[in-house]
């Protein structure tokens, strides 16, 4: 039981927290702008690398470098929107999807250019895990889980209590009606990018802290993030957060040795769990657990 908590449940929650932060942004973008943002993963990698540069360059802790990561992803998202997505706002969602794929490649190329293809790690001391009654957990994993929960809580306040959040929900409910009701749609779109960029920067730093930094790190988790967003009902930020946690847990638990020491699923196939969940969701409940917009 303890082994399950230590080696499956806690890593699953950590991975789930990262998926959740990424999926919330995807879901918000889909809700407000109606397209699948394929550059999200590479935006995440950008945030992680900028945080790495800030923490090594300035000698600050990784946690203190998160604002630097956000300071890179916010303008990157806004510039991509102004240069590419804004011009395609009235075209088909597929066209926007392809253009975001192009942005993804550009971002990744920039990362290769400045940081090279070799995996890097955040400077962090090797510390023994904290032990509570046999439950062993790395301090950084506690912070990742708490940090993601805090982000989700702040987002909840923003969406439910502020006029800007209400305007965002109105736009995701009926964009044309929102526009004619005098909602400042351009401002809502900018706000959406800012929120998604902050969340994905945090996710990138967390992912880098949990594992290591590679130029394809974000792209590798993009599919799982989409699966999480769709599982939770796309366009529903809460569903996305929930879907992220479920997916993280599912991936980690898929290797649990249920059959006398033999893992349920070979670890090599772990990343296939996201595909399975995605396909199962689309077949059985395409609107997602919380009735999304498809």
């Amino acid at each position, binding site marked *: 039981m303890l082994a399950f908590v230590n080696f499956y449940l806690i890593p699953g929650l950590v991975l789930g927290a990262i998926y959740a932060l990424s999926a919330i942004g995807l879901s918000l973008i889909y809700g407000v702008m109606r397209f699948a943002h394929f550059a999200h993963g590479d935006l995440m990698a950008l945030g992680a690398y900028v945080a790495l540069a800030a923490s090594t360059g300035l000698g600050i802790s990784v946690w203190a470098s998160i604002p630097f990561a956000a300071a890179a992803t916010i303008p990157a998202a806004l510039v991509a929107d102004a240069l590419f997505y804004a011009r395609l706002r009235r075209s088909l969602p597929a066209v926007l999807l392809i253009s975001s794929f192009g942005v993804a490649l550009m971002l990744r190329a920039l990362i290769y250019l400045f940081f090279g293809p070799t995996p890097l790690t955040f400077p962090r001391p090797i510390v023994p895990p904290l032990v509570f009654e046999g439950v062993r957990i790395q301090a950084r994993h506690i912070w990742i889980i708490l940090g993601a929960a805090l982000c989700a809580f702040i987002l909840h306040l*923003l969406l439910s*209590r*502020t*006029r*800007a*959040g*209400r*305007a965002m*929900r*109105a736009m995701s*409910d*009926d964009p044309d*009606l*929102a*526009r*004619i*009701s*005098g*909602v*400042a749609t351009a*401002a*809502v779109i*900018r*706000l959406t990018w*800012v929120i998604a960029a902050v969340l994905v920067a945090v996710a990138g730093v967390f992912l880098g802290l949990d594992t290591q930094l590679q130029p394809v790190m974000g792209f590798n988790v993009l599919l799982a993030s989409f699966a999480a967003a769709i599982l939770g009902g796309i366009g529903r930020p809460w569903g996305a957060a929930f879907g992220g946690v479920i997916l993280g847990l599912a991936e980690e638990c898929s290797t649990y040795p249920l059959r006398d020491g033999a893992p349920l699923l070979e670890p090599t196939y772990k990343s296939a769990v996201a595909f399975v969940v995605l396909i199962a969701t689309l077949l059985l409940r395409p609107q997602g657990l919380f009735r999304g917009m498809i």
Partner: protein
Amino acid sequence: MTARADPPALSVSGVTKRFGGFVALDCVSLEVSEGSITGLIGPNGAGKSTLFAIIAGFLPPDGGTIRLRGEDVTGEPPWRLHARGLARTFQIPRLFSRMTVLENLMVAAPNQSGERLPAPWLARRQIRREEEALRARALGVLERLNLARHAEAPASALSGGQKKLVELGRALMSGASVILLDEPAAGVNRTLLREIAEIIAALNREEGITFLVIEHDLDLVADLCTRVWCLAEGRVIAAGSIGEVRNDPQVAEAYLGMTFDVH
């Protein structure tokens, strides 16, 4: 018509709209005087809703001009007209179905500082004050529409007639002074219909809001409207008081087979 210094609240002159070879509106001109409740009647397919769409900026006209208080607003997009104080409701009510009734009203208020980008993280106190004032105003409007008990219900849970009232509420929240109502009575039960009619009359009387109403229920038109325009096959065929329009032979012909009881 008496000569007046003030321009009419709304004037439509020579508006034409074609869809392919079909002429939906053929040089339509009409006026809605300030502070009036004006009716727009006519058989199905007469072009009433098309005219509404053009006035509210949803469709560009092929010719003619729309003036709001004398100012040419032809071809302006809906949100700009909305900011100028022109609001419309839809024949089939359109609401933000996943938001509550109260939120539907709050989102329709003109921009405030909370909607701008950095504000949610700064100036928290001011935003809270604004939010409270906005909430109070929305609740006041709901009170007036007799919907206060549904404030926290999701908009999708309301009946068709109540949805029409929420649309009217959204128009009020936006501070509109000219409101276009597209069939406020269609599909509404008699009791609620009386209520809607009273609310419209009260808003007109007490707040001086000008209404242009598309309606098939001629009794309601007779109750509410001081002046009526009748449209048929894309043309204005009659105008005047409801009594005059009802007795107009052209109108009777347009509504072929329909007989009017003049009360």
